[in-house]
Structures are given as C-alpha cells and as structure tokens.
C-alpha cells in the first residue's frame, strides 16, 4: 500500500447551459494511492471524463466546479486543493503534465494536425524543465524508443496523419512521460483502437507504471479493461460513484445493484447463456436526474419507502456502496454474485 496521492472529496461539477443545468458530477469521492491504478467505470455521460478534467482543473465553460476538494499530496505534509487554484494560474499549470499527465480517447485528434511530433514533445519538456533543444530532443528520442516506436529520430519530424492509431497513442504516452508524472490520467485510452492494439497499449502502460512508479487513474466503460488494469475500482452512475472496492471484490462480490447488473450484461466464457441480460430502461435524461436513488427506475430491488436518500455505506472493509438496501441482499462472503 502506497501513500495517498490524490483525494477527491464530495466533488460537484455542473454545466450551465441555456437549456438547463446539467449536474455532471454530484458528490464524487475518490482516493488514489501512489503507484496504484484506480479504474473508474461507467456508462457514457456518467461524469467520469468530467471528473478527470476537474482533477486538472480544466473543466471548460459553461462547466464549473461547484464544490468539493481535490487534494493533491505532492508534498504529503502540505496537500494542495486543486479545486481552489486559479484554473489559468501558474500553480495549476506547473502541476499539469509536471505532476499529473493525461492521455485521451482519440489519439488522432489529441495531436495537433499542423505541428510535428517533435515540436509537441519538446514543447512539453521545455515547459517544465530547463533543457536545451538538443537535450529535449535527446529525451524525446529515448521516450519514443521506450514506448516501442522504431526510428524515433524520424518520428520527431512526422505529423499525426502519417501515423497509425496505435502509434499515435504510443506517441501520446511517450509525451505524457516527458516529465515523469506521479499520476497519469488515462481517459478511455484504448477505446478508439482495435483489440490487438488495445492489449499492446495496456501491456505497455502496465510496464511503464512499474518502471516509472506512477499512479494511474484509468477511465473506461469497458469492464474487461478494468479487470486487466485496475487495482481499485470506482463504479459511477449519473455523476455519483455507486460502488468502490478493490478489483477482486467488484468482480466477485459486487454489492450495488447497478454493478451487479453491469456484470451480468457482459459475456462470460465459463457460463453458457442463451441471452445476455441487459439493464432495463435507458440512462435518464441528464437534465432530469431521478430523485432519491438515481438508479431506482431501473433497479429490481427498489422499495419507495427505503430508497429515498441512500448513503455510501461500508458493506465490507474497503468496499463501499451507495445503496440503502445493500445489507439486506448482500451475498455471503465467497459467493459469486453473477454466477
């Protein structure tokens, strides 16, 4: 167990649109340990990407961090509340990339169409370190080499349209490592890639994590990727995290009905099923989040008199679920919820 590196407490982010207010994140709590991987999983629109941007304090207008703390333990004795920093000021800009780097879902569009790979990498290095052009170039070559790209010197002069999807994401990863960040936020880094490339990129990220000793906040909608990457998991639904536990507990002893339903809806190779189960209903309209437990319209266990105001409860040591009824139907230890 490492030391706590990042702690998000009761984070609220809203988007103030003319059509109404979208409460994209409403009360998220996350804790990240140094050197470990926290997987954040949820459907589209559950607020996971917004949470990631809030951690870098770069939620763009009309969005705004309404309340909550984002404590960064860069110096364990003097945590910095990122939510309180000026989003354009020098303090947050030093943290960005210097301490917390981020890679994105679309490696194609995450790189500039009109600047060479070298230009963008050297810019990142020289922004945070006192390095000459030659030193920065040298470091870029080494990093490109490290992420498994051949002919790194030539690559520095290349543009994004000359690379394949997998190469682009490798370039992004190399760029993210330029300042040896202590936390890497990966927002669906493999979603736009084919399955083979995806598993190569995931392997690479795990190797680099061991080598650089960084923590990873891994955002995805893919439970398979979570199983492969994460040490701890936070399951999000409509701007709240509904369950937090270590990865084994999530897959074998899920406590929240939403997590259980998600797990039932993915195919398993060891169980023969006729039809794959799906979660009933649709994700509600973001302007009209259901009152009480937001999941109640889709929940088999819903009881009006009990589910009005669920709170996060610790159902087992280290496992928290946002459900009023969890204790009643909690499976006994060792029993599989989704078998």
């Amino acid at each position, binding site marked *: 167990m490492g030391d706590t590196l990042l702690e998000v407490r009761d984070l609220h982010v809203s988007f103030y649109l003319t059509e109404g207010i979208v409460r994209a994140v409403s009360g998220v709590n996350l804790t990240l340990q140094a050197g470990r991987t926290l997987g954040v999983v949820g459907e589209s629109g559950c607020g996971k990407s917004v949470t990631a941007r809030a951690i870098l304090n770069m939620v763009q207008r009309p969005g705004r961090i309404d309340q909550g703390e984002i404590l960064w333990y860069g110096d364990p004795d003097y945590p910095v509340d990122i939510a309180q920093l000026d989003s354009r000021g020098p303090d947050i*800009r030093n*943290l960005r990339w210097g301490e917390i780097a981020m890679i994105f*879902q679309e490696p194609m569009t995450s790189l500039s169409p*009109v600047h060479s790979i070298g230009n963008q990498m050297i810019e990142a290095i020289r922004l945070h370190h006192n390095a000459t052009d030659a030193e920065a170039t040298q470091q870029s070559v080494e990093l490109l080499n490290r992420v498994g790209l051949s002919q790194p010197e030539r690559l520095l002069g290349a*543009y994004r*349209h000359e690379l394949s999807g997998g190469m682009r994401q490798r370039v992004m990863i190399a760029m993210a490592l330029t300042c040896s960040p202590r936390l890497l936020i990966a927002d669906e880094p493999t979603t736009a890639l084919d399955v083979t490339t995806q598993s190569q990129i995931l392997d690479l990220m795990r190797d680099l994590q061991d080598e650089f000793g960084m923590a990873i906040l891994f955002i995805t909608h893919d439970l398979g990727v979570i199983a492969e990457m994460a040490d701890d998991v936070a399951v999000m639904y409509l701007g709240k995290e509904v369950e937090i536990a270590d990865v084994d507990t999530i897959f074998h002893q899920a406590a929240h009905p939403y997590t259980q339903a998600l797990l039932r809806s993915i195919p398993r190779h060891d169980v023969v099923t006729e039809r794959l189960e799906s979660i009933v209903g649709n994700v509600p309209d973001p302007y009209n989040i259901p009152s009480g437990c937001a999941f109640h319209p889709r929940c088999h266990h819903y009881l009006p008199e009990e589910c009005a105001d669920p709170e996060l409860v610790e159902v087992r040591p280290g496992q928290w679920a946002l459900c009023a009824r969890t204790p009643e139907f909690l499976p006994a230890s060792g029993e599989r919820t989704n078998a």
Partner: protein
Amino acid sequence: MFRFIVRRILTAALTMVAISVVAFLIIELPPGDYLTSYAATLAEQGDILSEERLEQMRVSFGLGEPLPTRYFKWVGNIVLRGNFGRSLEWRIPVNQIIWHRIGYTVLINISTILFVWTVAIPIGVYSATRQYSPGDYIATFFGFLGLAIPNFMLALVLMWIGFSVFGQHVGGLFSPEYRDAPWDLNKFIDLLSHLWIPMVVVGTAGTAGLIRTMRANMLDEITQPYVETARAKGLAEWRLIWKYPVRVALNPFISTIGYALPELVGGVVIVAVVLNLPTIGPILLRSLLSQDMFLAGAIILIVSVLTIIGTFISDIMLALIDPRIRLE
C-alpha cells in the same frame, strides 16, 4: 515539396494560356469593333467618316485580319516584346497607361489585406474565446454594421471627415503638389496620409466578414482534443490558443489571398471613382465601354496573371503552414 511546386507552376502556366484565349475572345465578343463605336461617337457630333477612311483605319489598326492571326499577333507581341499594343482611344501605348495604375492597385490591395488581417484576426480570436461575452456582442454588432454600409457611402463620409476635421485634401492618393513630383520621403508621407481612406473603405466590409469567419473557424477548433492536450500540458491559455487553434483556423484565409486582387479591380470601381483613385478599375470600365480592345485585353490579362500568381503564392504558403496539404 519540390514536386509540389513544379506541378503548381505547370498548372499555372497552362491556366495563363487558357486565360489569354478567353480574354481575347471576350474582347471580340461584342458586335462591331472600336471603329464602329468611334464612328458612332463622331456621328453624334455630326461628323461622318467616309467608308474609305474607315477601311484605311481598320487596316492600319490590324482589325480586318482573321481572328486567330490577330490573337497570335497580340500574344506574340506581349510575350516577345512586352508590347501590349496601342490604346485605340488614347492613341498611346497601353504600357504607358496601365503600369503605374496596376502598381497603385496592388499597393492599395496589399495594404488593405494587411489592415483587414491585423484588425480582424485578433478580434475574431477574442470573439471566439469569449463567446457571448459583451465584447463578443460588440464585435458582432460592428461587424454586421460594417457589412451593411455600402463602401461608397463610407468613402463619402470619411472624405467629409478628412476634409472638415483635418483640413486634408481628399481623394486620390497624393496632394496636388506631389502628384507629379519625384519620389522622396515627403511624397511617401503624403501617400500614407491619403492611403488610409481607401484602406479603411475597402477593408471595412472585408474586416467584418473576416471577423465572423475567424470566429466560426475558431469555435470549431477550440473544442478539439489537441487543444485540450495543450492545456493539459500546462501551456498558458493565450499561448496555446495562438499556437494551436489559431494556426489551424487561419488556413482558409491564406487560400483566399489569390482572390483579393480581382475583387479589388472589379468590385470597388465605384469607390475608386468616388475617391478618385488612380487604380485600374475605372480604366477597365471605360475601355470596355469604348471597345478599346488592346487596353481592355491587356488589363484583363494582367489582372488574371496577377490572380494566378496570388493563388500560386497562397498555395505555397498553405503547404508551408499545413503539412496535410503537402501530402496530396
């Protein structure tokens, strides 16, 4: 890049040949020739030209020969000797009429483009990065105002202001005492003091349009993930805006440099007349009305060639600024 340039040069050369043919045919299209309209003008004054005299003039001007012969004579003289022929109406070589006017046209054109870009691009960027802010609304308001006011109207108002407030000689590009003086610093300063009026007049509508286009282009770009990457890297906001999205949003403008010239010649004749500018537009209009074919042909040809050169330059600049263009 080398192959790219060679290919563009070849295309440009072919286009010039085609344009020379088209220019020549256009001049030939109206029924009759210079002598018919010349005779008509004289007849209005009660002066009748005899048939023999007309035929004599037709032969001496070379108007009687078949079309292809006349075309090759015309083009041959231009290419080999730089001789655009004699203006039938002015009775002097075309070269003496047009070159200084073309010089001033290009001068006004370039200074207008510089004016438009330096004003419009920063405002467009501001409008986009602060969309729906009071500043954005003010820029939008004046933008539409600039688009809506006719150029000649603005010209008249500015001339009036220049005259009544600054007591300045208005119209033209020079004060009378400098018009035929040799070039020196004072003449240059005099030119600058006159140049701003056509620059503002011709540039206002362009500026307004460009602000809107720049704003729209920027709004498309600033939400792109590569901008987010730059922000996540810790770049200062203004620096990342100017380095990344502005660079991409500029591309469409560079490709329009080539069209700016013909627009100035054809589109602002009224302004040129009102402001008494020694540009090519009014001369072209007059030569077309009087069927002064060598003069009109020369102007059309030269303006077209300048357009091709402008397009060529903007192609090269685009390829330099945007690596995707080089790819082909």
